[in-house]
C-alpha cells in the first residue's frame, strides 16, 4: 500500500497547488476589471433609489466590503473562505451572499453536467467498441465525420438546430428544466422525477461534443489493441467472442479514457452558459451569464468560474487515483 498512498498524497498536493493558482488567476481577473465592487454597488443603488454618488459613499462602501485591504490579503481570505468554509463572497449589487443567489442552482448545474458526462460515455464506449470489431472503411469514414462534426457543431448550435426543428415540426420548444407546477415547489420525489424528465435533453446536448469525439477515440484505441500479438495468442489458445474481447483488449484500451474525463467535463462546462440561455435553463450557467452580460457582477462570476474549476480539479484527482488503482505501472511511477 506504500506506493499507492504516496501516489495519492503527491497527486493531492498537486491538485491543491493547481487550485491555489486557479484561485489566483480568477481573483486576479476580477481585480483587473475596471471599477471595483463598491463603485458598482453605489452606482447600482443610485439607479434604484436616485440620489447622487459621492466619493465618500464609495469610500464607506469600500471599507465595509474590505476593499481597502491589500490585494494579497483579500485574495488569500477569498480563497480561504471558498475552500475552508464554503462561503462564496458577497454579490456586488445585492447585499446578499453568492451562496444565497446560487442556492441549489450550482448543484443542479453539476447534476446536469455530470449526467452529460455519463451519457456521453454511456453512448461512446459501447458504440466505439462495437464499431472497432467491424472493419470497413465506410464505418471508419462516417465515425471520423461524426467526430469532426462534434468539433464543428458545438453544443449550442446543436441546441439551436433541435429547437428550430422542434418549433417547426412539433410546435414545442423543449426548453426549461421543470414544468410549471414544479418550478417553485420545494424538492420532493415528484419534483426530482419531473426534473429528470426534462433534464435528459440538455444533458444530451451538453455531452454531444464529448460523445462524438470519444466515439472516435474508443474505436481507435480498441482497433490498435485488437491487432496486438497477445490477442492473437489468446485466440490461438482457443478464446473467442465476447470472452476474448472483454478479457484482453478492452481492459487495456479503455485505461487512457479515464484520463480524458477531466477534459470532457471542461468541454461540457464550456457549453453550459450558452446552452443554458438557448434552452432557458435556470441554473448556474445562466446565473453566470447574467452576472457577466447584464449586471457585471464580478463576485458572482468569479465564484461560479472558481466552483466549475474546482469540480474539474477534483474529477482529475479522482480519475488519477482510479487510473492508479487500475494500472500498477502508474502508481509505481514507471510511466
Amino acid at each position, binding site marked *: 500500500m506504500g506506493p499507492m498512498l504516496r501516489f495519492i498524497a503527491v497527486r493531492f498536493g*498537486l491538485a491543491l*497547488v*493547481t487550485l491555489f*493558482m*486557479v484561485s489566483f*488567476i*480568477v481573483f486576479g*481577473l*476580477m481585480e483587473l*476589471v*475596471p471599477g471595483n465592487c463598491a463603485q458598482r454597488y453605489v452606482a447600482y443603488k443610485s439607479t434604484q433609489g436616485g440620489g447622487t454618488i459621492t466619493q465618500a459613499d464609495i469610500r464607506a462602501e469600500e471599507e465595509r466590503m474590505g476593499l481597502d485591504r491589500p490585494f494579497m490579503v483579500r485574495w488569500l481570505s477569498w480563497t480561504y473562505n471558498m475552500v475552508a468554509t464554503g462561503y462564496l463572497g458577497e454579490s456586488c449589487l445585492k447585499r446578499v451572499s453568492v451562496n444565497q443567489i446560487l442556492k441549489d442552482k450550482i448543484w443542479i448545474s453539476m447534476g446536469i453536467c455530470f449526467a452529460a458526462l455519463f451519457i456521453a460515455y454511456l453512448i461512446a464506449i459501447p458504440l466505439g467498441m462495437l464499431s472497432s470489431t467491424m472493419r470497413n472503411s465506410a464505418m471508419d469514414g462516417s465515425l471520423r465525420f461524426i467526430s*469532426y*462534426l462534434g*468539433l*464543428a*457543431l*458545438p453544443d*449550442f*448550435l446543436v441546441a*439551436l*438546430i433541435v*429547437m*428550430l426543428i422542434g*418549433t*417547426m415540426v412539433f410546435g414545442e*420548444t423543449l426548453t426549461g428544466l421543470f414544468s410549471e407546477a414544479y418550478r417553485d415547489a420545494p424538492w420532493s420525489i415528484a419534483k426530482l422525477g419531473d426534473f429528470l424528465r426534462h433534464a435528459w435533453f440538455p444533458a444530451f446536448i451538453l455531452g454531444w461534443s464529448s460523445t462524438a469525439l470519444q466515439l472516435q477515440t474508443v474505436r481507435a484505441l480498441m482497433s490498435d489493441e485488437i491487432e496486438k500479438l497477445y490477442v492473437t495468442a489468446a485466440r490461438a489458445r482457443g478464446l473467442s467472442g465476447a470472452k476474448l474481447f472483454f478479457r484482453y483488449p478492452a481492459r487495456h484500451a479503455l485505461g487512457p479514457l479515464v484520463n480524458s474525463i*477531466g477534459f470532457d467535463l*471542461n468541454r461540457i*462546462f*464550456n*457549453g*453550459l*452558459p*450558452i446552452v443554458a*440561455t*438557448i434552452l432557458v435553463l435556470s441554473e448556474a450557467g445562466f446565473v*453566470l*451569464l447574467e452576472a*457577466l*452580460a447584464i449586471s*457585471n457582477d*464580478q463576485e458572482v*462570476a*468569479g465564484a*461560479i*468560474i472558481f466552483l*466549475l*474549476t474546482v469540480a*474539474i*480539479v477534483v474529477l*482529475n484527482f479522482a480519475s488519477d487515483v482510479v487510473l492508479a488503482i487500475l494500472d500498477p505501472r502508474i502508481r509505481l511511477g514507471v510511466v
Partner: protein
Amino acid sequence: MAMTEDALPTAREAKKKEAYFTASQYQLVWARFRKNRSALIAGSILMFFILIAVFAEFVAPYEPTKAGFDRSYLNGPPQLPLFWDDNGFSLRPFVYTYKQKRDENFHLIFDVKKELDQRRYLEFFVEGWEYHLINTYVDLPGEGLDFRLTVLPMNRHLFGVDKGKVHLFGTDRQKKDLFSRVVFAIRISLSIGAIGVFIAFVLALAIGGTAGYYGGWTDRITQMITDAVRVVPTIPLFMAMAAFVPAEWSSEARFFFISMILGLVGWPTLARRIRTHILAERSQDYILASHLCGARPSHIIRRHLLPSFTSYIIVDLVISFPYMVLSETALSFVGLGLKDPVNSLGVLLQNVTDVDVMLNYQWYFIPLPIFVVIVMSFVFVGDGLRDAADPYTVHK
C-alpha cells in the same frame, strides 16, 4: 529493342525515386497531402471561403451595415436564382419580383407575393456602392494608434439585378441584405481567428520554448502554470474577460480586444506541444555541437530547434484555428463578443432563438451551415496536414 523498352520505365522510375530522395520536406508533405482526397476537397472549400473573405466588398452586392437598404423588403425571404420555370428557359439566371404587403389586420407580419411572370435577370460585374479594394482601418482607444489606409477605389460588384435589388439569402428585420452580411461575417470570423491564433502562437512559442529548452525546474513550474490555465473552462473565462469591455469602445477596438483575449487564453495547448517537441529535440547531438560552438540559447532555439518542427507548428496552428472561430462565435452569440455594426457569424446568430424567427423567418439560420462547413474544412485540412507532416505515417 526489348532492352530499351524495359529500360525506359526503369529510368523513369529511377528519376521518380531520385525526385523523392532529393525532395525538400515541404515537397514531401505536399505529395502526401495530395493523396488525401477529403483533405484536398476541404482545402479547396477553405480556399473558396478565404477568397470570399478577402474580396468581401466585391462579392457582396450591398453594404452589409446599411439598415433599411431595400425599403419594400422587411424580413423578406431568400430569392432563389433560377434558370428555367414554366415560362421557359433562360441562359441568364433570374429571380422573381417579390411584392410585400401588410396583411389586412395590420399585423406586423408581412405577406410576400411572388410575381411569377415578372422576371428580373441577374447581371454580373455591375456597378454599385463604392469601396476601396485595400481598406485598413484601425481605431484603438487613444489617438496615437489610429491608422487608416485606403487605396484603389472601386464600385464593381460580382453580381446585381437589372431591376430593384436581389437578396439571395433574404433580408433581416432591419432590411439589411443577409447575403452581404454573411460575406462580411466570414471575413470577420476568419480574421479574428487568425489574430487569435497568431497571439496564442507567439505566447506559446515564448513560454513553451523556454520551458522545453531549459527543462528542470523552469519546465516544472511553467508546466504547473500551464496546467492551471488549462483547467479553467475557457468559454466562461472568455466571457468574464469580454464582459468588462467598456461599452463606449468602438466596434473595431472591441474586435481587437476580443481577438486578443482569444489569444491570451488559447496558448496553453500549443505551448505544451511546443515544449514537448523542444524537450525531445534538445538532447540531440547537433544541439550539443551548437552549444560547444558557443551559440546563445535564443540563437539555438531560433536557428536549430524551431526549423526542426516548423511543419508540426503549422499543423497545430491550423488545428487550433477552429477553436478560436468557435469561441468568438459563442461569445458573440450571447452578446459578449462583437456588436452589431461588425458582423461575425456569431453576431448573425444572435436573434435566432426568437420563436417568431423560428416559425416565420427560418432564413436567419443560413449562417449556421456555412459556419459548420468552414470549421469542418479547417478540421479536415488540419487532420490531413498532420498525417502528411508525419514522416512515419504508414501508407496502406
